[in-house]
């Protein structure tokens, strides 16, 4: 697939601190790329550099296959929402979008209502943006990024301030624009559950360093599968399981026994414990989520 965004050893320094340290990511056409990291990990700074809002101290950014000064010519093909939405509070949502259209040279008045409807602001009329709720402002920010349907859309924490219904709507908007129009998205978020529902590729960033870049399939393959069970006697259950040859056992603070040995079947465990006089109250097979994987990775890096 065509790589439409690539950063090569991108570094940004504030004082003596490298907030982004030799980060290299690759985003292909049609990707929904999730940039994962804790607060202050360097996600926003990296996105700012990609959008041309901030300069690089080292490294290079390639856009649509062009690097250096040539890449800057492709910045108009990027729509972005970085940090808070940039909107005029005294103007209406329509006027704000009209301004973006004028600056972009878009002469299709119908596109404004179209985009407002897409983000769920079709009915706001001429209300000044200043009286919008945080979620509505966020939607307008997303609408600004989508104006002109750019080929690459960069959204920094786009679901901040949205209610659960709004989160689902935004997720669907992103998914549908990606599938119908082939728009590529780079989305940063620390709400990993949401990101995992739409992204197909991830970049995990911690303290300015890119720890790993991988696909959804790679994450699910790397994710550990375990059996979790609750019994009436934890200690005795563990002794029985160990004597049955299970080595990777862990007991959580909540009294849940975790079994990481892959060879064993959950039915065999229930039977073994029953024979030993242990009552199994609950048994489930669990696979690591994106969040689990992220936490393992960041813990290792520390």
């Amino acid at each position: 697939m065509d790589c439409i965004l690539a950063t090569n050893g991108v570094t940004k320094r504030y004082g003596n601190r490298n907030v982004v340290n030799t980060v290299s990511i690759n985003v292909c056409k049609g990707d929904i790329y999730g940039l994962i990291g804790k607060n202050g990990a360097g996600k926003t700074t990296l996105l700012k550099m990609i959008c041309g809002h901030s300069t690089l101290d080292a490294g290079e950014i390639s856009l649509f296959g062009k690097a250096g000064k040539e890449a800057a010519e492709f910045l108009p093909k990027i729509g972005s929402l970085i940090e808070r939405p940039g909107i005029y509070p005294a103007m209406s949502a329509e006027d704000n979008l009209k301004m973006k259209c004028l600056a972009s040279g878009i002469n299709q008045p119908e596109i404004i209502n179209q985009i407002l409807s897409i983000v769920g602001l079709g009915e706001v009329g001429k209300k000044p943006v200043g009286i919008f709720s945080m979620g509505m402002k966020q939607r307008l920010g997303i609408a600004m990024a989508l104006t002109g349907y750019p080929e690459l859309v960069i959204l920094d924490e786009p679901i901040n301030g949205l209610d659960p219904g709004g989160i689902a709507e935004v997720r669907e908007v992103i998914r549908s624009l990606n599938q119908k129009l082939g728009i590529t998205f780079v989305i940063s978020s620390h709400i990993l559950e949401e990101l995992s529902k739409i992204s197909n590729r991830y970049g995990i960033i911690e303290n300015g360093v890119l720890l790993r870049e991988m696909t959804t399939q790679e994450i699910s393959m790397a994710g550990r599968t375990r059996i979790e069970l609750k019994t009436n006697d934890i200690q005795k259950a563990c002794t029985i399981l160990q004597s049955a040859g299970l080595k990777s056992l862990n007991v959580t603070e909540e009294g849940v026994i975790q079994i990481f040995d892959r060879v064993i079947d959950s039915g065999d465990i229930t039977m073994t414990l029953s024979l030993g006089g242990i009552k199994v109250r609950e048994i489930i097979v669990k696979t690591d989520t994106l969040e689990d994987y992220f936490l393992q990775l960041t813990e290792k890096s520390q």
Partner: protein
Amino acid sequence: MLNLIRMDFYRLKHSNAFITMLILTAATAFLHILALWYFSDVLLKGLGDSDEIIIGYGLSSLGINILGGKELGEILSFCMSGFFPIMYSVLLTGIFCGAEYKNGFLKNISGLYPSRSKLIISKFAVIGFQTFIIFTVYAVAVILFSVIFWFGNCRIDNFPQILGFIFVKMLLCFTLSALVQFFCVLTRGGALGITMGMLISCGVFGIFGTGLNIMVAMATRSTGFDIFYFTIKGMADKMKFDAPGKDMLWGILVAVVYTTLFTFFSILLMKKKEIR
């Protein structure tokens, strides 16, 4: 660039600040003329045998032609000798340019213009337009209210001279607006730009210029040097209706030089600074 200009004009058209400034400008012109008309009898008596009376601490002088409401050029020159309408114009520039940074709208459009210089240069179209409109409204209002108050007594001796005077004054005001824009870029907001613009247009920094003039005069034992010939506000104050042609040309030169400098530094800052 044309797209950016269109965008800025669209915002100006929907700006409450612009309408407010225009109303304030017309109201100020009205109050100026009203005060002149109201006190003209008293002041005319105060003239005695003299042709003009100095008011304030030499800030301005009122001549027989003004107090009698006779010569519109002189009335206009008098009404523009203070900080009106320059202050309104720079105030509007600060509000207009500062809003783009304060509200973060610049983030939405900076990517469209990677070189960023256009983001600065395009603003001059709207700054120039609003300066022109504010000066025009002020001048027209002054002339209109003069005609109303001194009905039948008014005349215009030299219309091209009036136009020339307003043009140079406007140009210097435009330069001050370029400085305000520079402060907006520097601070990513309008507060400092508005404050500096207002302080300069009110002549607050004139005290430093006067101090410098005195020091130079004491050091060189000559009064030939005048720093106000090299400052925007100084030249704006020197621009009178009957200012000599070389002063007018010097005023234009000062405006062009400073505007170029402020634009250059604004672009430089814009290119270097992070957009938030």
